[in-house]
């Protein structure tokens, strides 16, 4: 590197030494690296690395955290070559629709090759956060044995491992601070993994095993919680009852985040009061989740802790509106609420009245496959929340019916939406009052909510919806479409507009080759495109693959019809076609 410090571009030297003006790098590399080390945003770091070669190098030496949104967009070798000092890795694998069983088993996204490379190049690796990856027990054991300083493991929506793999982690990772296991498709062999934490192990700060079914030894858990004085997050599974919860809370009153176990148990009154006191003593509790089988009778024990809550996750608690209303009245500081639609519109009205600071709400369907109109929430619940919670910017709403007028009013009330995900559960359902398509609803959303980053549409939609989206959604990054649109024109509008589009996922829409190919130039600026059950054919996909060699075009064919494409997944990659594609995936 150039050791000379170029002081100013205007010095007399610059006339005689024109090279002096060429280098924008006016700092010694150590200074540049120091400054860059304070940059944490991945987008900023990407921008920085594009300035010039010096900055590219300074950035790559100072980066310690890497985020890879699509594990196939790059290879372990390329990552290892570019970034020598990585301590934290976040990797995402399968397309999001795999959460809904649209991606067959054994599709790929296996972590193992990555781990092998990391063991070679990043022996000091501390954190690994995986989403929708396949992870085997062997990989987990390899991880546990290869990185002596390993601290944080987070597995969300992954598959392929069992509780035996967790046992390896517990046994060997002496410096573990975080073990976060969420909603994975795993083999729950036994709860004995928890007992594998050594007696002298005290560093745990985050423990989340809420989604595991097999019972752990409560004795082992209680001792673990007692000796880990820095424990901030504890989310237990259903096997832990209320009396056991009380004992845990007494040992860890410093908790900031709690996921309870089963909230239904025959409790003597005395124990009820003890539990209530335990909650009263948790002065730092901000996040509460779990509450399985929540029996209304015991909800009152939560009340002392409710006033400091900022996030309440009731997505496993089937509460009725009257029960929920009483609870929510105690939570005036809520910023984020996840709830089941058993609370109905009345419950949401209570939210509107009680939670003026609310920024995010997610309403999940308790009976997603039972389309009885008399259950769940309607547009009036959503309206009520938007009326009372003007700071709302994130919504995920599953409902049986909606109207254009309601949505228009909702976004008038809350114009700051960044994430608007509306799921009218009956596909292709129109405005139930006017029988018209829901085009104007989403038109209102994209016209009014200029900060919109993520949108999921539903209901009966013509191409007009997509005209609106393409024209107005200037900040849109993620779009999810199902059972919508009339012709190729719809998808063409989106691909022709939406300058910041990164992820487009489409299912069951009448978009064909013309639509697919209209995005030819755009896909390289996007992370990925998913199209399933549309009208795309092999010829269309082949043409795309031929024209754009830096895209991977992966096709899963229709069993009966050889030319018709069932699923196509298109993504940019600097690693070329993947070598681990299973037989049902054809890379064109």
């Amino acid at each position, binding site marked *: 590197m150039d050791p000379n410090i170029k002081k100013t571009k205007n010095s007399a030297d610059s006339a005689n030494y024109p090279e002096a003006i060429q280098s924008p790098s006016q700092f010694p590399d150590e200074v540049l690296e120091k400054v860059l080390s304070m940059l944490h945003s991945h987008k900023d770091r990407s921008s920085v690395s594009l300035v010039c070669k010096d900055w590219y190098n300074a950035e790559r030496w100072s980066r310690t955290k890497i985020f890879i949104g699509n594990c196939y967009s790059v290879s372990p070798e390329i990552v290892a070559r570019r970034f020598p000092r990585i301590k934290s890795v976040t990797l995402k694998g399968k397309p999001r629709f795999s959460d809904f069983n649209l991606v067959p088993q054994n599709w790929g996204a296996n972590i193992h090759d990555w781990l092998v490379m990391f063991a070679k190049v990043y022996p000091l690796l501390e954190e690994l956060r995986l989403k929708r990856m396949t992870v085997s027990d062997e990989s987990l054991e390899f991880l546990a044995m290869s990185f002596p300083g390993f601290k944080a493991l987070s597995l969300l*929506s992954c598959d392929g491992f069992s509780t035996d793999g967790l046992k390896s982690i517990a046994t060997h990772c002496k410096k573990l601070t975080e073990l976060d296991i969420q909603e994975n498709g795993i083999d729950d062999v036994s709860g004995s993994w928890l007992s594998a934490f050594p007696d002298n192990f005290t560093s745990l700060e985050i423990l989340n095993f809420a989604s595991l079914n097999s019972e752990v030894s409560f004795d082992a858990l209680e001792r673990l919680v007692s000796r880990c004085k820095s424990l901030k997050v504890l989310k237990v599974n259903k096997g832990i009852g209320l009396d056991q919860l009380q004992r845990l809370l007494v040992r860890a009153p410093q908790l900031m985040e709690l996921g309870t176990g089963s909230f239904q148990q025959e409790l003597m009154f005395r124990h009820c009061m003890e539990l209530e006191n335990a909650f009263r003593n948790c002065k730092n509790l901000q996040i509460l989740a779990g509450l399985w089988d929540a029996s209304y009778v015991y909800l009152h024990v939560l009340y002392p802790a409710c006033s400091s809550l900022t996030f309440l996750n009731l997505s496993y608690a089937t509460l009725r509106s009257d029960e929920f209303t009483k609870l929510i009245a105690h939570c005036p500081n809520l910023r984020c609420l996840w709830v089941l639609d058993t609370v109905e519109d009345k419950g949401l009205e209570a939210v509107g009245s009680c939670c003026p600071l609310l920024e995010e709400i997610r309403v999940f369907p308790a009976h997603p496959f039972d389309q009885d109109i008399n259950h769940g929430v309607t547009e009036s619940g959503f309206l009520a929340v938007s009326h009372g919670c003007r700071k709302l910017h994130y919504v995920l709403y599953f409902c049986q019916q909606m109207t254009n007028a309601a949505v228009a009013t909702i976004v008038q009330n809350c114009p700051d939406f960044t994430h608007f995900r509306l799921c009218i559960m009956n596909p292709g359902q129109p405005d139930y009052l006017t029988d018209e398509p829901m085009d104007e609803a989403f038109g209102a959303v994209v016209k009014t909510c200029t900060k919109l980053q993520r949108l999921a549409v539903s209901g009966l939609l013509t191409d007009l919806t997509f005209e609106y989206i393409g024209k107005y959604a200037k900040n849109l990054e993620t779009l999810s479409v199902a059972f919508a649109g009339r012709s190729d024109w719809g998808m063409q509008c989106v691909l022709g507009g939406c300058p910041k589009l990164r992820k487009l996922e489409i*299912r*069951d829409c*009448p978009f064909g080759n013309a639509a697919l190919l209209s995005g030819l130039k755009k896909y390289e600026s996007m992370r990925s495109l998913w199209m399933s059950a549309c009208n795309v054919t092999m010829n269309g996909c082949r043409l795309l693959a031929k024209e754009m060699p830096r895209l991977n075009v992966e096709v899963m064919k229709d069993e009966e019809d050889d030319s018709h494409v069932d699923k196509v997944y298109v993504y940019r990659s600097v690693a070329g076609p993947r070598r681990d594609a299973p037989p049902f995936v054809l890379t064109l």
Partner: protein
Amino acid sequence: MGKAANYENELATELRLGLLGTDHHEPEKQSFPLSLVIKSNKRSSSEMDYNSSDKCEQDSAPPPKAQVVGWPPVRSYWRNALQQQKKTESDVSGMYVKVSMDGAPYLRKIDLRVYNNYPELLKALEAMFKCTIGVYSEREGYSGSDNAPTYEDKDGDWMLVGDVPWNMFVTSCRRLRIMKESEAKGLGCL
């Protein structure tokens, strides 16, 4: 599943989206993809009845909605976890206990979860049985009327309503009985 002639589903490649009997949509056909057609061997597809949102022409019993793979988009893990909940529909719908009143020909049932406290419960009982229940005091029990509310607790003992905190009462009450004051006096003196 719904193959009645009423519906315009064509089992070839085209489904028409729209409500039967309404004409304000454009007449062009909407060709929807094959996943909506019956494929008997594939576990992943099933027939989707688009016209079931139709309000105009309906059979008396609309066909059951077929399930489309991955729709609504809820994570399968979460959905399974919810289904596993021990709570049955009856749990969700209330905590009903029998209420008997001496001299009344039949019993009633009330949902304890509807009430927040003793006064609300007592008022409801008074309305239901068209009686008056006296005023509660710890020393005297219920004074001022002929009737006293009692309940059978988890241990099978008959207790006077009102002695224990409300929440404890709700969890331990098995059934209620409105007694004549002369019998209830014996309970209050314990």
